[in-house]
């Protein structure tokens, strides 16, 4: 069952730069997909289309049954509640504790405190941070902060997890740990995962579907299993 579908998608920025040209993609429910490519190839723009930070200039984007390009700014939160986003720079609320950060998507949505607590604890347990719930982000290491970010992204039990270079700021050992957490989310919860990365080691080790982009177009789309070792240019 397909969860994400892009048809003839173009994105031209107001300054005239064509970030995406004629992108056609389908991602199935429960799939784990890497998007790789050199800097400026359009992979981040593609991610932005998926969480509706940008609208396609032309074409059609459907995420989890929602027609993204027709979604009005005011209604974007409806899409965002269905997905989790993980960023390279974590983007945690600095003045809130780990618990409050993870609880945030639920509490700001008006969920009852009694329902929030077990969900937050479950998410923190999954990322292995249950003992740090009272810490503030600046008291955590980079790897721990990223795990808080993952916990926040999955606390809503989203069907889709978008990861924009989640290991970009982390050392190889911690990256491996984080990838382990994300992989287990994919396997245990059946969450669809789309990950943009620069890290060849991760891509080579994980052996998942790999979409390669260059100059705003998809240059290769290698399905899981048919994978060959990727080498950076």
């Amino acid at each position, binding site marked *: 069952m397909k969860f994400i579908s892009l048809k003839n998608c173009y994105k031209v920025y107001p300054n005239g730069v064509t970030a995406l040209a004629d992108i056609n993609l389908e991602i199935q429910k429960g799939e784990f997909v890497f998007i790789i490519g050199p800097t400026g190839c359009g992979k981040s723009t593609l991610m932005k289309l998926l*969480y509706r930070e940008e609208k396609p200039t032309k074409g059609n984007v459907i995420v989890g049954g929602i027609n993204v390009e027709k979604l009005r*700014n*005011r209604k*974007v*939160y*409806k*899409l*965002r*509640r*269905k997905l989790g*986003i993980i960023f390279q720079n974590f*983007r*945690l*609320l600095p*003045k809130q504790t780990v618990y409050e950060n993870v609880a*945030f*998507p639920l*509490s*700001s*949505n*008006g*969920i*009852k405190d009694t329902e929030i607590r077990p969900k937050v604890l479950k998410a923190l347990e999954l990322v292995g941070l249950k003992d740090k719930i009272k810490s503030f982000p600046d008291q955590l290491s980079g790897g721990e902060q990223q795990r808080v970010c993952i916990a*926040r992204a999955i606390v*809503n039990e989203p069907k889709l997890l978008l990861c924009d270079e989640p290991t970009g700021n982390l050392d190889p050992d911690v990256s491996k740990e984080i990838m382990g957490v994300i992989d287990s989310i994919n396997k245990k919860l059946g969450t669809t995962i789309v990950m943009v990365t620069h890290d060849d080691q991760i891509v080579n080790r994980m052996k998942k579907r790999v979409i390669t982009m260059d100059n705003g177009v998809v240059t290769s789309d290698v399905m899981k299993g048919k994978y060959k070792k990727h080498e950076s240019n």
Partner: protein
Amino acid sequence: MKAIRVFVRSFKEAFKSVFRNFSLSAASVACTTITLILVSIAILVSYNIKNVTEKLENELTIVVYLEREATKDQAENLKKTIENIPNVEKVTYKSKDEWKFEMQNYSSTLNSTLSYLKENPLLDSYAVKVKDAKYLRKTADTIKEQEIVRSAEYGEGTVDKLVSVFDLIKRVTVVIVIALVLVTAFLINNTIKIAIFSRRSEIEIMRFVGSSNYAIKLPFVFEGLFLGIIGSIIPIIVTIYGYLIAYSKLNGHIFSRMIELVKPFSFVLYVSLILVTIGAVVGFFSSYRAVRKYLKV
């Protein structure tokens, strides 16, 4: 139910946030405090000026002297006619005998002179109080046109000037108060805008995790409201104690008994209410507008 929970949560969050972003809150509160103290002083002074000028204006009276040959009926009719003039508030009759008695008591020379005369040389009169001193001349002129009126005097010239000066003072003080309130609003607005600017990444994160615009705006709006209210606490204390102390030190009047100060209660309470309202309303709308800027609405 959900909306109510979001509302309650926002309220709590806003309260926490005031303390967690202490330096920014302190800057906003300090700015609000200083400007509101200025507003308070302007209100206290201008209201006192207004009060004094109005009191003095109320003292202004037109004295209408009747012709000697006027009959009692004619005098009664005249009273009714004067009372029917729109600007007239009160008409009081004073007979020539009352005048004589008053004058005799005033000085011994007048007493002996008046006693010497067989007939009372004075005239019956009406003291006319007006509603609006601005139209004093017009009212006096209308009265003069009536029959059996010998004269209608109100101290032309001096009084006319006095009234126009009072009018000018009142206008100027109102303009000063309004200008200060606007400046206050502008300053508080800018401080809160800067405070929210430094937290725009927070707003962005809220958007990423799927908070609705309502859920994002509410905590900031409450925070602005709290900052405004907290910022008005010191001005209110300064207003109440400052005015009470000033009032008692000056024994309730400045220069002479003519210029009485407004009684502290419930005047200071009204001023306090104005201050807290300005703080709250400006805080509320400033943060509302600032957050809106960072939401893609």
